[in-house]
């Protein structure tokens, strides 16, 4: 039987995932205008992929047979066509006066940040609800 702490674990894993989403969006935005440096390749935009910690056996996880519950998040780098910007005076411009910048869309990143914050809040709410329930359970038998 899964203990009452499972709920906390699930919500905590969700919060970790959303925090990672926020970190990645910040990283992408910070690197939105970096160019291909000497020796350093062009920044590849990152993306967070989440998947259930135990999709196939959710019920078994609930029964305590599997230890991992909640969500797992990993970061992948996305290969995209770099944005070519005409900046002839740039020290790293090529023969035609173009520099290459990573394919980061600031609008998409900003929406990702907003979504991550909202989802983080939802996880916090679930965590608080679990705490409330546990606290109330402690009151069973009190008047």
């Amino acid at each position, binding site marked *: 039987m899964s203990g009452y702490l499972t709920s906390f674990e*699930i919500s905590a894993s969700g919060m970790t995932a959303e925090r990672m989403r926020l970190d990645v969006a910040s990283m992408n935005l910070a690197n939105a205008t970096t160019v291909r440096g000497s020796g350093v390749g062009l920044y590849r935009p990152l993306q967070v992929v*989440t998947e*259930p910690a135990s999709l196939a056996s959710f019920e078994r996880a609930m029964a305590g047979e599997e230890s991992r519950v909640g969500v797992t998040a990993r970061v992948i780098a996305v290969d995209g066509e770099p944005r070519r910007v005409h900046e002839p005076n740039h020290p790293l411009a090529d023969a035609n006066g173009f520099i290459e910048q990573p394919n980061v869309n600031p609008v998409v990143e900003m929406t990702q940040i907003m979504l991550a914050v909202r989802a983080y809040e939802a996880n916090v*709410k*679930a965590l608080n*609800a679990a705490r409330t329930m546990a606290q109330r359970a402690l009151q069973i038998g009190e008047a």
Partner: protein
Amino acid sequence: MMEAIEGVTMQLALMALDAYALRHEVIASNIANHASADYSPQGVDFESLLGPLRAAVHSNQSELLISEQMSDVAARVAVVPTGAAEVQLDEEMSALAVNTLKYQALVSALGRMTALDRMAIRGDIR
């Protein structure tokens, strides 16, 4: 046998508490996985199982029989897909609020029930 002595009401309340706790875990998991690909939201089937139990109570079955039926219901509480394609955060949040409220209401009810026992044990009525 113990269940029959403890009373079916207590047994039902404890079963419902377990079901709500499980449902909370499922909702938390839905929220945590709201953006996961290939994840379909899950739910807990509990209230729908109570129909036969209600019928048994209404037809004045013996307490032992009702208790057995209750154990049967407890064994059938399961995590099932809700059928929705993807997680709707607002739906999950309201389900969470409802579930927490039900849990709290049940705990309060249990408190009242045990208050009667306590009064009997202490033997005082204030």
